């Protein structure tokens, strides 16, 4: 396979806040964000969420999001609404359609950015399904370790060789190995905070209250 590394920048937010607390902050932010009707404020929130997502170690493909917002706006313009701003060939640009399109596009982009900072792999889901997800991540780490052996020139056979070696190993669900009880989400998340420290709490409370206040005021 091509040797492009998929290494992500570090999740700095995860060093100070637990997965559950960050997720709760994300849920509060989603509700407040969706209640926001001011275009300017919503645009500012989207930028703030993007900064938070970057702080959480996520790479943002700006071109992709510009295209999403532009295409949603463009399709909205095809249904005229309100005062005519200008006419470009067969396309009539109206204020209502333009505003609605941009609002909708920003909503979509903002929700993705919130999700990017609020969700991380060590988030524990409840119940037996949550336990199975933990086991998936346990195996995912094992499979990832063997990816260097996979060759593009012999894709099927190299993947097959790796699988034969990996599974079934000594990691059966009945053996009580790490992951079976949802305690190990993998080496990548090993340094993530399991409790929220003061700095993390300040950031999360600030994010949640600021968004809630903006939803109430505007």
């Amino acid at each position, binding site marked *: 396979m091509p040797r492009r590394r998929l290494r992500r920048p570090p999740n700095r937010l995860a060093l100070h806040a637990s997965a559950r607390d960050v997720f709760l902050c994300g849920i509060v932010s989603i509700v407040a964000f969706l209640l926001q009707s001011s275009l300017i404020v919503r645009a500012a929130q989207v930028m703030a969420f993007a900064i938070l997502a970057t702080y959480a170690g996520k790479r943002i493909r700006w071109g992709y999001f510009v295209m999403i917002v532009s295409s949603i706006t463009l399709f909205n313009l095809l249904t005229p609404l309100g005062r005519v701003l200008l006419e470009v060939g067969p396309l009539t640009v109206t204020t209502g359609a333009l505003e609605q399109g941009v609002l909708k596009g920003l909503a979509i982009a903002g*929700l993705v950015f919130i999700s990017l900072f609020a969700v991380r792999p060590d988030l524990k889901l409840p119940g037996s399904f949550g336990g199975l997800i933990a086991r*998936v991540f346990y195996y995912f780490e094992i499979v990832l370790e063997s990816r260097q052996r996979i060759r593009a020139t012999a894709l099927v056979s190299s*993947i*097959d060789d790796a699988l034969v070696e990996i599974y079934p190993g000594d990691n059966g669900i009945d053996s009580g190995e790490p992951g079976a009880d949802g305690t190990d989400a993998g080496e990548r998340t090993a340094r993530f905070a399991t409790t929220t420290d003061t700095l993390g709490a300040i950031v999360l409370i600030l994010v949640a209250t600021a968004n809630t206040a903006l939803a109430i005021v505007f």
Partner: protein
Amino acid sequence: MRIDTRNQRLDLVAFMGALCLFFSTLEYLFPKPVPFFRLGLANIPVLLALELFSPGYVLLLVALKVVGQGLVNGTLASYVFLFSAAGSIASALVMLAVHRAGRRWVSLVGVSLFGSLASNVVQITLSVTFIFGSTAWVIAPAFLAIGVASGLVVGVFAKRFSERSRWMALMKERIGAA
């Protein structure tokens, strides 16, 4: 050692869920001809699971794949997750139906093709309904064409892997699906 108990089957499902996540990371290694294009390599383990498990376990694998991808990519709380979930569930249901009904006549390539088309139809419908508006139907043919191409690629790989893989033969033997 045979895979007899429910726990052993669940363990294999979890392993195949991990394979879905692994294949979805491989996807980033391939260039995207258009921004919304996805090969859907994460569906390869789901196609293989059709030959190993009963429908309930296949649907569980799809749920693990969707939630796992949502956690890894951080999209669990966004519209991307809902689109992915809806497309994957529709695709799995269609693939299960085609695989069961046409076991003798339809190979994994055909099953993959139907699944890919089902996923694309659902995702186009959702995006037209909730995001772009009815005018966006004009782009549907292009997306369906992309779905056919990616479904073929994924199906051919899954069929070849299923036929040649020692691991698949071993799993079929142990699970009693050979």
